[in-house]
């Protein structure tokens, strides 16, 4: 999943590891770190947005229907959304 965005050899390392491309952290997909994945149950979700507010990665977004989803390219599987979701609409399941 993670794209190789870093230099292959030491000769290609930018002096001082300076980065000249703004916002390029977006191209690093931290989703590859994940061991647990959040699964959202629409029947329990009341669209309150608590998961969206608490997600430390900022990777939860609201879809066209008003439900919330995690962008799995960036979700590290920390489980904070599931812990904070008071209606119990989010379950963390093991990545298989």
């Amino acid at each position, binding site marked *: 999943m993670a794209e*190789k965005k*870093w*230099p292959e*050899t*030491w*000769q*290609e*390392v930018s*002096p*001082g*590891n*300076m*980065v*000249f*491309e*703004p916002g390029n952290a977006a191209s690093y997909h931290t989703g590859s770190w994940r061991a647990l994945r959040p699964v959202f149950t629409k029947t329990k979700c009341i669209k309150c947005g608590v998961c969206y507010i608490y997600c430390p990665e900022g990777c939860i977004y609201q879809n066209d229907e008003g439900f919330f989803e995690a962008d799995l390219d960036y979700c590290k599987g920390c489980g904070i959304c599931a812990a904070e979701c008071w209606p119990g609409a989010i379950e963390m399941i093991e990545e298989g």
Partner: protein
Amino acid sequence: MAKRVGMEIAIAAAEAVALCRPDVIAAYPITPNTHIPEHLSDIVADGRLDAEFVCVESEHSALSACIGASAAGARAFTATSSQGLLYMDEVMPIASSMRLPVVMAIGNRALSGPINIWNDHSDIMSQRDMGWISLFAAYGQEVIDMCVQAFKIAEDLDVMLPVNVNLDGFQLTHVVEPMLFPTQKEIDKFLPERKPYAAVHPDTTVSMGTLGMPDIFTESMKAKDEALKNSKKTILKVWKEWEEQFGRHYQPIIEHRTDGAEVLIMTMGSMSETAETAVDEMRKKGMPVGLLKLVLWRPFPYDDLRKAVKGARSLVVTDRAVSFGSCGPVGAEVRSALYDEPDAPAIVNEIIGLGGRDVTVEDFIAMGEKGLKAEKGKREEEYHIYGVRGS
């Protein structure tokens, strides 16, 4: 034309730095380097130098301010000693890893404890592996010359590394010596304005000091190591330019009366002058002793050392610091450098001059005599703390 002046060396260092037109100076006072930033603050307050003098609340902040200024493209200078240098420790490797050409003068002083304000090299030796270029001055003229050279070396785009200029506390910082002082015009000719590789500015897109994960960290360290080793080329180039313009010669290891020498003594810093006198005395007595003055500590001049010791029977390496539980740091380095050399000299490692204890001509003669007795392939002791009472 250069003017011959008598001046305290710390004051002279400040005057030399001022001639380099630094944009930012940030420092916190600590004996014995204090006169350097103190005098620079006078120079700025008097309007002789257009620079920001930042009165920070600690050495950590002093170097951090210099790092920020340098990242913004400024020419930045700081100075410190002993515990002050240790307080900078956390940001020392940041300056080199970010490839920022900060220049720092270190008025070398022993590390506590017991609390001691006098000279030895334990402060800089504790910062040996921080990725800085390290130069050691033996007397006042070298201090002012190196303070100027340091900026040119550091800022060269083939280098982009911080440089520390080491001058022994009190023995150099507080001593008045005659020096040939370059003029502003001469320094302007020698040292061009800094042209940074990149500078943080609202109009530019560059991030400095980013995260480096395991995927890239090894390559980053290799790149840093290669940059430091590669800096030697520029150091030699700058020294050549200095010699062409000012007539004073510098090299990584300066030799004194090494022709036909069977025993070599190696020194760093202010002890070198005393050692010169001692070697001259020994030669008068017919003792075949020569002197190697180590000027460039990092990057370590392996080739120069191997060349300089060729044919010598023994090498007495003096150290002004203890690597506790090991030996002297310079002794360890030199042994490692010569280990694979065929016919390498016997190495005697003498730790001397700790915490301001005087090192005399007689001490060097005694070390020369010890060197004459040393036999190749026979190591009697790893190191010896010279003159310690009770042994």
